[in-house]
């Protein structure tokens, strides 16, 4: 169900929301994340914007780096191994877990939980990473900017608000591309999952869902990720050829309704798989269990005191 929006000379964007089409296009080598400014005018602006705001010293953030980037793929592998809770490394503290569980129980505000998430993520990269309201608000601004277009965004750029937010996050991330991606962009997936968990927990159906169902209900992919066409491409999703410079938006959010699995949420099994899959899933699972424990229930929702009765 791809849609192509084409205004000759001005814009050529393809929106793809069908899981099978996304899988196919994601493996298509003529689609990549090099973001060379070419094609219609607005396409050039889109790619320039990506390169300007989502790169550090000319190097793109890892989620926007091309498939052939050897450093990206190497770090991706190393991170996936390092961020697996099953390895025994403490990836979060008990106090952090308690705060996130408190948010899920509706006891603390979203911003406080988000700061904690940012802190958890930042400390994966630097033990002394410090998150606060200011860094969280900066990350939120970056997320709004990344996720769409609005006249307000021009004001953010003119006023320097966007630059200041980016600089603050860069400074806390020590100019590290991976730390910057995690603490400015990646964390939003976790925050959104916790928000869904909080809603779910307060709904009557919470008692009817097992842990896997809760994780399946809470995790969701990013709304969309961009690609650009590198060489002329003929594909069944579009009537005409896709020409170099055409922007292809893989709409993972819409695809997630049809395929709510790790392949869609984390691109598992693909060259661009999220290295934090095990970490995010483990954290979400731990928060859910903690929120139930403090309610006197085990991970299946059974009351602990009842289970203790012989």
């Amino acid at each position: 169900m791809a849609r192509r929006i084409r205004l000759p000379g001005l814009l050529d964007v393809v929106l793809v929301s069908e899981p099978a089409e996304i899988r196919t296009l994601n493996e298509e080598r003529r689609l990549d994340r090099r973001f060379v400014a070419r094609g219609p005018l607005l396409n050039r602006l889109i790619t320039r914007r990506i390169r300007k705001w989502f790169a550090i010293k000319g190097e793109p953030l890892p989620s926007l780096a091309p498939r052939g980037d050897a450093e990206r793929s190497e770090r991706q592998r190393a991170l996936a191994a390092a961020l697996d809770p099953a390895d025994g490394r403490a990836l979060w503290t008990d106090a952090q877990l308690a705060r996130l569980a408190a948010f899920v129980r509706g006891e603390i505000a979203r911003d406080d939980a988000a700061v904690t998430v940012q802190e958890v993520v930042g400390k994966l990269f630097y033990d002394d990473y410090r998150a606060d309201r200011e860094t969280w608000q900066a990350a939120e601004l970056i997320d709004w900017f990344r996720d769409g277009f609005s006249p307000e965004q021009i004001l953010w750029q003119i006023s320097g608000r966007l630059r200041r937010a980016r600089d603050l996050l860069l400074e806390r991330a020590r100019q590290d591309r991976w730390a910057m991606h995690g603490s400015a962009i990646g964390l939003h997936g976790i925050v959104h999952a916790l928000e869904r968990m909080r809603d779910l927990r307060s709904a009557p159906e919470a008692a009817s869902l097992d842990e896997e169902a809760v994780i399946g209900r809470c995790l969701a992919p990013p709304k969309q990720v961009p690609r650009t066409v590198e060489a002329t491409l003929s594909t069944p999703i579009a009537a005409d050829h896709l020409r170099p410079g055409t922007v292809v938006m893989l709409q993972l959010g819409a695809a997630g309704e049809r395929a709510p699995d790790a392949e869609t949420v984390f691109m598992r099994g693909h060259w661009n798989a999220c290295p934090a899959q095990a970490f995010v899933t483990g954290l979400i699972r731990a928060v859910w269990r903690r929120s139930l424990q403090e309610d006197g229930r085990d991970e299946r929702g059974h009351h602990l005191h009842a289970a203790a009765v012989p």
Partner: protein
Amino acid sequence: MKIRPFESIVAALFRIVNRRRVWHRLPFLLAVINLLALRIDLRWRNLFDTETVPRNPVAPSDFDIRRCRTADGSFNDMSIGWMGMADTRFGRNAPLAQTFGEKPPGLYEPNPRVISRELLARRTFVPADSINVLLPAWLQFMVHDWLSHGVNDTASPPHRFPVPAGDDWPKPEMTILRTCPDQQRGPADEGRPATSRNAVTHWWDGSQMYGSDRKMQQCVRGAPTGLLANGKLHLDETGHLPLDPEAANKDPDQELAAVNGNWWIGLSAMHTLFTREHNAIVDRLRIEYPDKDGEWLFQKARLINAALIAKIHATEWTHALLQSPTLQYAMRASWWGMLGEAYFKAFGRPLHSELLSGIPSSPQEHYAAPYAITEEFTAVYRLHSLIPDDYSFRRHGDDKEVLACTLADLFAGGTTRVHRSVPFEDVLYSLGTSNPGLPALHNFPTHLRKIPEKPEQGIFTDLAATDILRDRERGVPRYCAFRRMLRMSVPTSFQELTENAQWQRELATIYGDVERVDLLTGTLAETKPPGFAISDTAFRIFIVMAGRRIKSDRFLTDDYTPEVYTPAGIAWVEENGMREVLLRHAPALAPVLADVRNSFFPWPRSRG
């Protein structure tokens, strides 16, 4: 296939309108357009595919897949051979993340037996005055064509929950076998909700009569002496279905049909009628094509019979179930188009436009997902309340009662015993002149709440409790969540759910929170649109799935042509209806049916 811009606009426009006013409260013309808008919306937003690694069937070399329906339903869509075939997964109308099956403790809350006893049990029979018992018989006949979850899971521990104190259930706890799990899950399914598979073909292809595999097809075509060479289905010398020597229920009087579970007199009547119709079609084709062999005659008769059944359902049965002028026009338009039957009879279908000329012969389309019957469709078709408990068999000539019995007497082999004492036309007459139950709270058949499975061991089935549990087990959203995912208004209190003050109190006592109300209970309690026998909630699934069963089927769209059906075949479908079928196989009913506008409306009773 993509949504067209004007479709998007119409759908969006009516989404706004419906925030203020529901479709059935609009003037006729606007209501018709609103229904079209709802169908567009649902086709693109409420069809979800659950297959991850679908099967890859091989086209049989000795069978004309282009012009005949395969036994297992494969290659209906020539480019996606597995679509709709037997043993493929049920699809969903709810977004997949919302379809995780419920687990204990919530799975058993509120207790299904309590719901069965306090909310569903029939106190006094409440009839649906405007329809007859052929309507639920037809419905079950159709459901057996479209779906079956197969045998339940005997390998896993069953569901267990306590029976409340003071209940007359023979045991202190109720056990219900689980739905058989999908045995073909793979790594690609990790993290996804559980799935189940349809044991029969998903298509509207008469598989309840013709089987969903070659072996069963041969079985129903076989007389004791072997396969009938003339292309007919086997009937005994009295024109009834033969007995099934291998009946699963071990009842020696059980009639044979490709799907003969949950057999009762209504189902038997429908199978008998349309088996006779198949044989009548064969006789007609043999006159036209004397040199064709029995296999060809069988396959063509099957195509024609299945299309006729689809047409009767769309243009007659649905109109009886949903008696509103808007629906009458809309459903007839789905077959003949907005130009109407008269235009069709004068000029045919020159336009191949679904809107103007109807779905048959318009292009095959699947919209947002490959065709499959959905779990939500299964759920909203739980209409057991339609079944009466008591039956009176009367002579069509003078209306004199010849047999009075209960539903328990009409189950399984009981049908054969009725056929031995009551002529077929009197069975039809008796069903046609009786009212079914109204789908509402407190109207679930008593017999179906205590079906004797192995009574000597104290094993019974409460179908009402089972219905409740099945929806929860299969991840069908509960009532409010169900409406939410269909973008309908959601009741925030029991007062908003139903106008019946007593039901409000009863529901509140058992559920406490309106969000916990089960889909079945909610749809039975909901205040229905005028003339409707089912709820507006169930109707939304009906809107999308009713048209889809035709629109996705190559044999009812692209290949609904004289070349595939033969000219005589197309004429048979277009010139016949339920009334003609009834009169062909029970001609003695002609005086009774003389003034009957719709065969599913109550027939007049004969005067002695």
